[in-house]
């Protein structure tokens, strides 16, 4: 558990945040200038907050009242920076071992296993300057992991990469983050990355936390869905593969008490899978449809209806185990008389269900 409760003022900007990040990934989302970098520097021990306390597993890293301020090298926080910051005069192997050599007492993951997970075995004798951006970041992640950290801090690790490189590195990140049982703080300005990797979300604006909690709740609370991207907006839910229909190439997933069908054979039964439901792909019905092509009919209860200024309305439906959002017209919402508490059916075409 990483606990942060700090204040720092620099010029006319002030950061004032308090949160706790448990084991698992907590994303910190904010635009540039929202205080993300200040927060990273404070937690890392590279900038000193004016006031407050930072604790990791009950050990104070910084405590202004008790006069504690551990230097960065003693904090045991592995950091992956946006610009990778590999040492240019050292080989990839020496970079990987840089932290490990200096913390012999620490239990860090197995070198060979990290190299394999990150797919960097063929790069070991090369120098950082001959690596691509994606490769550099993979090495930087390995270097942080191998330094025996008690928490990980990702500072916009993908921001400097193009879409292709991002897509290349995300699976590695996902795999690693599942494996390490550490608090992971993932700082980003990209909601999609946060959705894909994190369970918890902290939304930062002008140095203040405007929303925090489970990822979809925080997204909703912060009103992150703007008019421009609202049609691409949706929710991410955790499901488990239950059965495969190999004849039709479909996967049945257990979500709450329901069965959701998605195209493709996603994984073996029992494997976890993150699903994404775009709000525009979810429809609402008062009765279960008869003789329809829609395979996924999930009974649920309306939690809330948000009507904007435009023609759209956003309906949250609790289907037990997940809260889906349906983007419908205001007229449909009015004609179905949708209101909190109403029993409805959320309809999702199978072809619209995708892995997050």
């Amino acid at each position, binding site marked *: 558990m990483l606990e942060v409760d700090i204040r720092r003022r620099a010029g006319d900007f002030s950061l004032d945040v308090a949160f706790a990040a448990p084991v698992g990934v907590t994303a910190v989302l904010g635009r540039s200038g929202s205080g993300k970098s200040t927060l990273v520097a404070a937690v890392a021990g590279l900038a000193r907050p004016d006031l407050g306390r930072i604790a990791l597993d009950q050990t104070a890293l910084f405590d202004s009242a008790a006069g504690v301020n551990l230097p960065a090298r003693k904090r045991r926080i592995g950091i992956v920076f946006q610009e990778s910051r590999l*040492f240019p005069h050292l080989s990839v192997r020496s970079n990987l071992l840089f*932290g490990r050599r200096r913390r012999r007492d620490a239990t860090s993951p197995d070198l060979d296993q990290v190299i394999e997970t990150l797919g960097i075995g063929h790069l070991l004798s090369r120098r950082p300057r001959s690596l691509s951006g994606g490769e550099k970041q993979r090495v930087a992640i390995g270097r942080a992991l191998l*330094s025996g950290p008690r928490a990980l801090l990702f500072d916009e690790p993908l921001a400097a990469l193009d879409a292709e490189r991002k897509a290349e590195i995300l699976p590695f990140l996902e795999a690693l983050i599942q494996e390490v049982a550490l608090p992971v703080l993932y700082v980003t300005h990209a909601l999609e990355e946060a959705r894909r990797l994190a369970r918890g979300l902290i939304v930062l604006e002008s140095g203040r936390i405007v929303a925090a909690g489970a990822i979809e709740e925080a997204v909703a609370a912060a009103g992150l869905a703007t008019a421009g991207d609202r049609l691409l907006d949706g929710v991410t839910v955790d499901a488990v593969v239950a059965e495969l229909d190999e004849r039709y190439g479909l996967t049945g997933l257990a979500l709450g008490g329901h069965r959701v069908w998605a195209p493709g054979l996603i994984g073996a039964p029992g494997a976890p899978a993150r699903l994404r439901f775009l709000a525009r792909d979810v429809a609402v019905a008062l009765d279960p449809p008869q003789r329809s092509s829609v395979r996924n009919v999930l009974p649920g209860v309306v939690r809330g209806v948000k009507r904007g200024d435009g023609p759209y309305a956003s309906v949250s439906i609790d289907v037990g185990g997940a809260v889906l959002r349906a983007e419908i017209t205001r007229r449909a919402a009015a004609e179905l008389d949708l209101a909190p508490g109403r029993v409805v059916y959320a309809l999702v075409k199978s072809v619209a269900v995708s892995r997050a």
Partner: protein
Amino acid sequence: MATVASLPVAVLVALALARGRFPGKTLLDGVVHLPLVLPPVVTGYLLLIGFGRRGPIGEALEACCGVVFSFRWTGAALAAAIMGFPLMVRAIRLSLEAVDRRLEDAAATLGAGRAGVLFAVTLPLALPGLLAGAVLAFAKALGEFGATITFVSNIPGETRTLPAAIYTLTQTPGGDAAAGKLVLIAIALSLAALIASELLARRLSSRIAG
């Protein structure tokens, strides 16, 4: 000799000037650069007063460790070191200031202490500058004349430096041919030092370039 012995001191001073924040920094900066702007004869005279047999520092050194500078080759080396020092410090300081502080931060988060950061990151990255500083100081030491002749005179086989020897020969009737040879040696030595440093620096910086 002068170059090798003064390099660690120069690195320390350059570090203090590049990174340190302490009272008297400007004063240190000034003192270090003094030999660059003072007439060399003045520097030599000051050395003579300070490190001569009767000088406060010279006397103490002789009493405690039997080290004598005045009118010995060690004195010539000291004079050369002092005269080359500001050049060396300048070059090293510039290259230290060019080292990316963010890499040092990254090293700290990986568990490196201050000394660890210095030896594993900062100095290797500043190596081309260190080398350039050393070569400059070497060239300066080779050509040093004024301070040396004032401090330790021009004793054959003991304190006669290359320029002093050339000067002596040009003052001697019929010494032109011998002087010419020495001039050629001086040119060859200087050129070799320059070329060697240039090659090394190029190799180093191509290794380091991110």
